[in-house]
């Protein structure tokens, strides 16, 4: 068997292959960037921003679900906390620039994420999902009961304000490019995390947790970090969303929202980078198209059907299915 295999050659091949993959990644990113830069001239910017906010939310969720193997059923809590905090501050603190409001919203969601993580991380599988759901319901009731959220009516008229006190965000195109920059930064961050040394450990934990423990890893800490980063990005998505729509409502805190982000991630392809983006785009579009037509009362059942179909027939989602096709036909 050992026909003159030189370890150095193999190693060189691996590094070379890595380079090719990096280049491919760069190309996909480039094409995507061009599309997103041109998009607001073809489509309505507010609709695009909605897609970007949900895409960021799903990317955040996928870091935890797809790459760490933890199914949180409480991510709505972070989306809503980000949204309400930013909305409240921008509405009530005069002179606060938009980016500071968004940072504050993200920070609050991050802290909430840490609290959630500390309380839930020792549970496995379904128990973990249930603890996160229960905690998110607590947060939901807090928002229902609080004065400042406007209860069932929601928080309206949040001023978009000015970015750094300079750029007027009331202008939809300005707003769009700001959201786009934040989205791209977060997307690249997640891409980096997944391929980083830390990402390798997350992969290992996801694939065989006892083995990772036996190799000396304190897996709880790695999971907590992933949870907190995921919560932070979800909070950021919520903050941006409240600025874009100048509205924060209980919808974002409801467990439907936690379910919807699972749907987006699964339909797009969990554990792939692009999957949640594609999934969010798909779901937001379907919801919009259906709500315009005669099927407007059938949105939930139709999404439910898509969900069932994905889980039964396309386990790897849209992106996963395309990847398989490409691999099969072009190698």
């Amino acid at each position: 068997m050992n026909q003159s295999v030189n370890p150095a050659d193999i190693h060189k091949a691996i590094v070379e292959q890595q380079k090719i993959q990096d280049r491919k990644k760069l190309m996909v990113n480039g094409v995507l960037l061009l599309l997103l830069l041109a998009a607001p001239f073809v489509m309505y910017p507010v609709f695009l921003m909605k897609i970007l906010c949900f895409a960021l939310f799903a990317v955040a969720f996928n870091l935890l679900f797809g790459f760490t193997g933890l199914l949180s059923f409480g991510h709505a809590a972070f989306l809503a906390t980000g949204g309400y905090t930013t909305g409240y501050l921008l509405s009530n603190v005069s002179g606060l620039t938009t980016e500071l409001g968004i940072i504050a919203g993200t920070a609050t969601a991050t802290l909430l994420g840490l609290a959630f993580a500390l309380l839930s991380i020792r549970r496995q599988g379904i128990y973990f999902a249930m603890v996160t759901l229960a905690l998110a319901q607590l947060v939901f009731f807090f928002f229902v009961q609080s004065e400042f959220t406007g209860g069932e009516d929601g928080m309206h008229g949040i001023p978009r304000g000015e970015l750094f006190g300079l750029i007027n965000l009331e202008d939809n195109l300005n707003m769009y490019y700001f959201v786009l920059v934040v989205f791209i930064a977060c997307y690249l961050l997640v891409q980096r995390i997944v391929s980083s040394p830390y990402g390798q450990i997350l992969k290992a934990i996801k694939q065989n947790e006892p083995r990772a423990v036996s190799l000396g890893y304190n897996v709880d800490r790695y999971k907590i970090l992933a949870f907190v980063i995921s919560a932070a990005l979800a909070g950021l998505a919520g903050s941006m969303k409240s600025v874009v729509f100048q509205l924060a409502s209980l919808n974002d805190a409801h467990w439907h929202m936690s379910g919807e982000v699972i749907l987006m991630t699964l339909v797009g392809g969990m554990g792939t980078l692009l999957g949640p983006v594609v999934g969010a785009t798909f779901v937001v579009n379907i919801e919009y198209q259906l709500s315009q037509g005669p099927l407007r009362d059938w949105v939930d059942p139709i999404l439910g059907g898509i969900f069932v179909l994905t889980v039964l027939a396309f386990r790897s989602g849209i992106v996963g299915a395309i990847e398989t096709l490409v691999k099969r036909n072009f190698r």
Partner: protein
Amino acid sequence: MTRPVLEARNLTKEFSGFTAVDDVDLLISEGSIHALIGPNGAGKTTVFNLLTKFLQPTRGQILFHGEDITPLKSAAIARKGIVRSFQISAVFPHMTALENIRVALQTAEGSSYSFWKSGNSLHKLNERCMELLESVGLAEFANTTTVELAYGRKRALELATTLAMEPQLLLLDEPTQGMGSEDVDRVVALVRKAAQGRTVLMVEHNLSVVSKLCDRITVLAQGAVLAEGDYHTVSADPRVREVYMGSAGSGERGSQGAASDNVEAAQ
């Protein structure tokens, strides 16, 4: 006898009324290959889980180089130098063989929380990974996804991963389980190589492997230590023959698979 690397005193594990491990004392001396044998359900794997704290002992103490490590967590014990393998092959199935080993090297390398660093920063560990892969004859599979490797190769990879931790004490849970005789011979050679400069405690069903490899044998039955000594002492012990080979057992068959057959006969 040389000084003990690992010592367990009165180790006991009760599961709501059932005593799986009953007052076990173990003394693993430095540089030895020590086997833990016994029929199915004797508590061998439970002892492993207790020693590495995958289970919490009900009573008892575990000492590593004389230091009490009973309160430590699994991950901390691994970092101290006690690294275990598992009964079913413990690999990361969707990583390449090289990445599997690299995960083990990252423990010591200290960048394992660096989520902002490029993955390419790990390339500096690749050389050591290739050495380890070569030492178990897997160099040519470095870039193969582990799930695609044959069973025997997975176990070899697991061993190489464990060795990457530079453990002082290696705990192997049935390293030859489910293998054909050709693979068994290879694993025996690998374990012998791995044991140089190290101490090994292994659970093993295959008595021919035990007789070839191990300096000292502890026989467990129903959670308690039944006998201890070298292979000849233990195999001559009538009590051991009684529980392990079955009372009708007429001597050792020695061939691969005989042990498990006998265990079944004993039940």
